[in-house]
């Protein structure tokens, strides 16, 4: 059984068909990329998986469970974490606090215990902190631990957002353009991290990315979209050489 299975998903915004009868499936342990020109509907697919948008039609299954029966805030609990195309961090909080919010789905203490900072809260905080410190170590964020997001450079924010998603301990990680706006060196780091996330942590990754270098470097399979519909699916090399894909990209003037 596939980890994530999407069948015949369709979503319209007014007259715009953002996603058109789209089907694909992701296997546990793979890195899967969605590529396509701007406006192809890639982020919309993510937002449907996150339950921010309800599809007009289609089936969404995660690990056998029907995704369409859960609320947006319950998606994290199934083990799905994500980043956003336009970075959505908690700007007035520190890096550490941002990552700790990632642990929210593991919260067990009650409000009353928290008001008194009962021993259980302290013990739980230690566990959360331990998990978060592992992420900080992994992503080399030590120097920024107590810095507020509001003063951090763009590249670091991207890494913090990845860290926050990792801190939640997901089975499936959705990355919306993880390398956009990053320098060559930062993109290189991102590539190693995605590799390690899959190999060492055993997390399945679904990403949207324009940087074909990164895509062919880390992805097992690629899905090409145009106007919300599937153009091609296969290994990065297959998709890149597919004439329909080349045409779609040339048609929009993008690379």
């Amino acid at each position, binding site marked *: 059984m596939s980890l994530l299975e999407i069948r015949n998903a369709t979503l319209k915004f007014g007259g715009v068909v953002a996603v058109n009868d789209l089907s694909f499936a992701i296997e546990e342990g793979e890195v899967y990329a969605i590529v396509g020109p701007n406006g192809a509907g890639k982020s919309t697919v993510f*937002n449907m998986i*996150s339950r*921010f948008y309800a599809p007009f039609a289609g089936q969404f299954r995660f690990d056998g469970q029907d995704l369409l029966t859960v*609320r*947006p*805030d*319950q*998606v*994290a*609990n199934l083990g799905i*974490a*994500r980043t*956003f*195309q*336009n*970075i*959505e*961090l*908690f*700007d*007035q*909080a520190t890096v*550490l*606090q941002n990552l*700790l*919010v*990632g*642990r*929210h*789905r593991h*919260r067990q*203490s009650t*409000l009353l215990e*928290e*008001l*008194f*900072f009962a021993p259980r*809260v*302290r013990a*739980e*905080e*230690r566990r*959360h*902190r*331990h998990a978060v*410190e592992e992420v900080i170590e992994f992503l080399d964020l030590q120097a920024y631990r107590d810095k507020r997001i*509001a*003063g951090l450079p*763009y590249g670091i*924010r991207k890494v913090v957002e990845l860290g*926050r998603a990792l801190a*939640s301990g997901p089975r499936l990680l959705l990355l919306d353009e993880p390398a956009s706006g990053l320098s060559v060196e930062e993109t290189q780091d991102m590539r190693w991290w995605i590799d390690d996330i899959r190999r060492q942590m055993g997390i399945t990754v679904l990403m949207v990315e324009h940087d074909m270098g990164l895509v062919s470097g880390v992805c097992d399979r690629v899905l090409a979209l145009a106007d919300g519909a599937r153009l091609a699916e296969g290994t990065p090399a297959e998709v890149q050489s597919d004439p329909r894909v080349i045409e779609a990209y040339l048609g929009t003037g993008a690379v």
Partner: protein
Amino acid sequence: MRIQFKTSYDHDMRLFPDAWTACVYGALMVVMVLLPVLLDEFFLGEITNVLIWAIGGLGLMLLTGQSGQASLGHAAFLAMGCYSNTILIEQGLPFVIAFPLAGVLTGLFGMVIAIPAIRLHGIYLAMATIAVSVLADDVIVLLEPWTGGVSGKFPEPIVIFGFEIERWSQPGRFYYLVLAVTVISTLFYRNLLRAPMGRAFAAVRDSEVSATALGVHIPRTKAIAFGLSCMITGWAGALMGYHAGTFNNETFSLVISITLLMMIVIGGLGSIHGAFLGAAVVAFLPQALSMTTDLFGGSGVAIPGLETGVFGLILILFILFEPTGIYGRWLKIRTWFELFPFARKAMFRRQKSYLKTERLR
């Protein structure tokens, strides 16, 4: 410059970041405990007043500063705390039960009120909560049999296990009661900030989408913020009732709601210090004004609206020049001294915020 060496995760969970800070607050606590000996009755009453406002400020700060929801209805919750405490005691409950319960009831009431308001943001929420403040007046008049309506109520002296606290004849005892509630409210606030729920409040304030994606239930979290905020505000209201000695339907007016909100903005949104600094401004402004008018030969003639006018002016100046409030200004001054002579003007310049996903709120 103070350098902290952190040796364990517990370090960041402490109440105070370092031994020095713990000493400063310890010393402050000693001074506070000694105040009834050091001050005369008038000034002790003023300090008591500051602390009561600070408790109310903490209540609203939790909502506005922490979870990002502005409320112009908090006078209604002050009233609810005040009346429910008095009524519960009249029904025969002892103060030690009635007082905490009054806060809890106000909190639950606040949560119920919050449910329709939760979908609203920013200025719209503020406008909706004004209605709560305005309605409170009418409701108090309508519930005359319990509330005493327009003629109001005089709270009985407080009795704690046979120990009597009468606000006028025993200002020292009343001060200690207020101090105890202040400390408890501050500890609740502080504990929340270092626990998951406090972080969820900040998450809801800064980005509802990503909070949701991480498993935070937005309406529930906002309602909890409302509830806790109203609980603390309710306690402040009950204490205000005792402090004033009498109250009626006009005591907790919209002006009080506005004052409370202005107070936390001037003090510094999102910080415990801000609630206390703002409270000091609110409580001492009338005195400072009358002293100044005396100085300019005002010969005791009251100028109508002067207080409100000056207060509004201070607020506008803060919003324009120091949006982080008095506490934010203090942090900058402290950093300047700590880094001397290396402080740079641009250090506190706010970074342009990066584009946010507008389509998803």
